[in-house]
């Protein structure tokens, strides 16, 4: 008897394992009745990061959060830089006999928040994808919450880094090869992805299908293969990997950097254009003119 119970994994844990495998690198929050539970190493991490009690269920470490306050815990985890996979019961427990079917309904990452207290009206939440093709860098930028989808190409590493600083993304996807070339070192969440995600013809196909068009000329992306690779990879990451709805994203535009003033990374930092240098103590220039007119200007920038 004891030998049997040791080797046999319960059907529910099998379900969990399948989800865990699918959501690689993410903390799996597994819906069990009125709770979302984490198991194994996730449970240990969860209890540490959120200061929750770590319990055991048949020798398996487990900790969980109540279903009705799950959102705020997810926010905290994502704010700490984790990715969180949410597994729901996709059948009505009243109607099925035996174990309820469960599936990952979405994976929450810093760059793809939708309903979150981490989002503020005054800041875009950008997810960026970068790839390189024959010495040209393609950069695609998306704010899922506003359907702002754009991109550009350039050929200079220094300029690329300046632009990234300007964009101030919450999450970056980068191809393995490209990361080797530019060795990006950023504070935000960085996902290094296999090269095939950025494959030109696959990505072109993804974009054509998504926008329901025959070519990308209308968006001004004709022949911009590096950008197409980045944009396609970005879109399929959001839709396929994270299961985030992207139906509302119905256009992509080209950002003409040549028609905009060049502001190097250090200039933006030194002049404290958007963020103060000594974080928190001083207000950045962007917000300062509003001080005496909080009701008008402060609100306007909402």
């Amino acid at each position, binding site marked *: 008897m004891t030998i049997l119970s040791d080797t046999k994994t319960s059907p529910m844990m099998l379900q969990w394992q399948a989800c865990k495998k699918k959501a690689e690198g993410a903390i799996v929050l597994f819906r069990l009745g009125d709770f979302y539970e984490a198991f194994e190493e996730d449970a240990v991490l969860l209890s540490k990061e959120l200061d929750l009690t770590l319990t055991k269920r048949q020798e398996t470490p487990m900790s969980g959060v109540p279903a009705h306050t799950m959102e705020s815990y997810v926010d905290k985890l994502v704010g700490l830089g984790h990715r969180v996979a949410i597994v729901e019961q996709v059948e009505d427990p009243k109607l099925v006999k035996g174990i309820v079917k469960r599936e990952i309904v979405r994976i929450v990452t810093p760059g793809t928040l*939708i*309903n979150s207290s981490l*989002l503020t*009206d*005054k*800041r*875009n939440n950008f997810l960026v994808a970068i790839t390189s093709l024959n010495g040209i860098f393609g950069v695609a930028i998306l704010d*899922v*919450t*506003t*359907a*702002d989808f754009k991109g550009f190409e350039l050929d200079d590493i*220094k300029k690329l880094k300046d632009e990234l600083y*300007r964009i101030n993304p919450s999450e970056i996807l980068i191809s393995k090869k490209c990361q080797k070339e530019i060795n990006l*070192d950023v504070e935000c969440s960085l996902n290094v992805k296999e090269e095939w995600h950025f494959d030109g013809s696959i990505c072109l196909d993804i974009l054509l299908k998504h926008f329901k068009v025959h070519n990308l000329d209308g968006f001004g992306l004709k022949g911009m293969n590096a950008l197409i690779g980045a944009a396609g990879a970005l879109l399929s990451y959001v839709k396929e990997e994270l299961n*985030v*709805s992207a*139906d*509302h994203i*119905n256009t992509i535009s080209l950002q003409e950097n*040549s*028609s*905009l*003033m*060049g*502001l*190097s990374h*250090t*200039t*933006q930092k*030194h*002049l404290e*254009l*958007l963020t103060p*240098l000594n974080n928190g103590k001083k*207000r950045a*220039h*962007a917000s*300062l*003119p*509003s*001080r*005496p*007119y909080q*009701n*008008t*200007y402060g*609100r*306007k*920038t*909402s």
Partner: protein
Amino acid sequence: MGGRLLKQWISYPLLSLEDIENRQEAIASLVGIPLELSAIRDLERLMMRIQSGYASPKDLAGLKTSLEPIPEVQETLKNIHAKLLIEESAHLTDVSEITQMIGVALVDNPPFRLSDGGVFREGYNKEIDELSLLRSDSHSWIAKYQVELRELTQIKTLKVGFTRAFGYYIEVSRGQADKIPDSFQRRQTLVNAERFITPLLKEYEYKMQTAEQKLSLLEAKLFSELREKVASFASKVLLIAKAIAQIDCLFSLSLVAQKKGYIKPEMDAGGTIDIKEGRHPVIEASLLGESFIPNDVLLDEQSNRLILLTGPNMAGKSTYMRQVALLVIMAQIGSFIPARTAKIGIVDKVFTRIGASDDLSRGQSTFMVEMAEAANILHNATKSSLIILDEIGRGTSTYDGIAIASSLAEYLLTHKEKGGKTLFATHYWELTELEAKIPGAINYHVAVHEGADGIVFLRKILRGSTDKSYGIHVAKLAGLPHEVIRRANEILKGLETKKPIKPQKMKELDLFSPKEEIYDHALREELKKIDPNTLTPLEALQKLVHWKKNYGL
């Protein structure tokens, strides 16, 4: 929305004269116009949630209240003829269809969650009305039934109630339980009470349960229908959102311009930056009550290409230079700027090298960071760039620093295609000699008043150079102990009189003369000091070896 767009504008100042002037025109035309945008919420994100199915009843109601002021905004903008605003208000299309659709369906202040109930307005759907009537009637039904039962059983304390776990029940205390008719079915036993149920109550319970279920299913269905109907207007609403964001930004900039007395800078494609009585927008705002000392700046591509700014620490050199950079950036955003008059030739890039910041995490010293940034500027600046260099070279020893700083300045002045308009602050007064040597360099200094009890910074930038750095005064202001200050003054006096570093002598030690001249001068100085009568032969020999080695002879 407007806030996000404003951030974009600040991050991406414009280069096209036309674009800048369009924004200026719009800002000017909004002066004195009362616009009320505060009821408009984040339309972009609301719409996104509605489209992707995450929307709550509150979100839909929020969309309605956000769209309601649109016609009024459009009406207000009707009489304004600025090109940008005409374009944007054309996107403010009629939204009454959406607001009506939501208004008819939802109550004014719906709950966050659909499951909380009470989302739909009375009269919207007959079935919902009936079902919710049933629910609200349950209290009076229970009260009525309770009275009936009390009469029937003659138990005064009999209660009819409801719990989520057990449903409806009739409760009597244990002592009264034997008075209960046999037709009552026992449901639950508590510490000192018994709970029963009757077929009638059971029937009622079933009716209520199915009604609840029906109601929530119906509400969910109707809500998602409504949401989808609203979602079909997404492209229209998003266009409105973009337009409102633009109008919001322009209006905000015009409000700030009015309240703070900003002026419209005259923009052109020429290479001159001529600002009269410019002020630092941020510091001005934080000086409550005190007045900010305005300053002029004149930079062009001819004789005012490089401003060499000298002056003591803390006198306001950095503030002045940042101010110039900020005003130019603000102007190219299209904003008005704090100044009396301004004529600004569009700048293609702004470079700054300000302050010292160690990059310990990457293992770079202050000096390394400083030099890397300077290198970047020299590689990437063009004739039309604006360059701010603050105390370049201070991270190393004095001679190294002077050498690097002056060679940098020379490079910027002589490579016309590379060196843009430059503001160059330094406390190496030796650099001020550049003015006489290379056309394009021009000296400015920060005025200081030396009074009886120390110095007063006047924060005024004037032509000409200064040769004092007042470091010890600043040290005193910073609160270094008196003893240290007194001793520092002594050492300074000593240095000024003894060593060849003293200012008067330095004039002879010309930085820009060939190496040999400097060596000759130094050698002569050392020879002067030697008294052959007291020198031993060995010492003389050692001196010779030393000189040969040090002066590369």
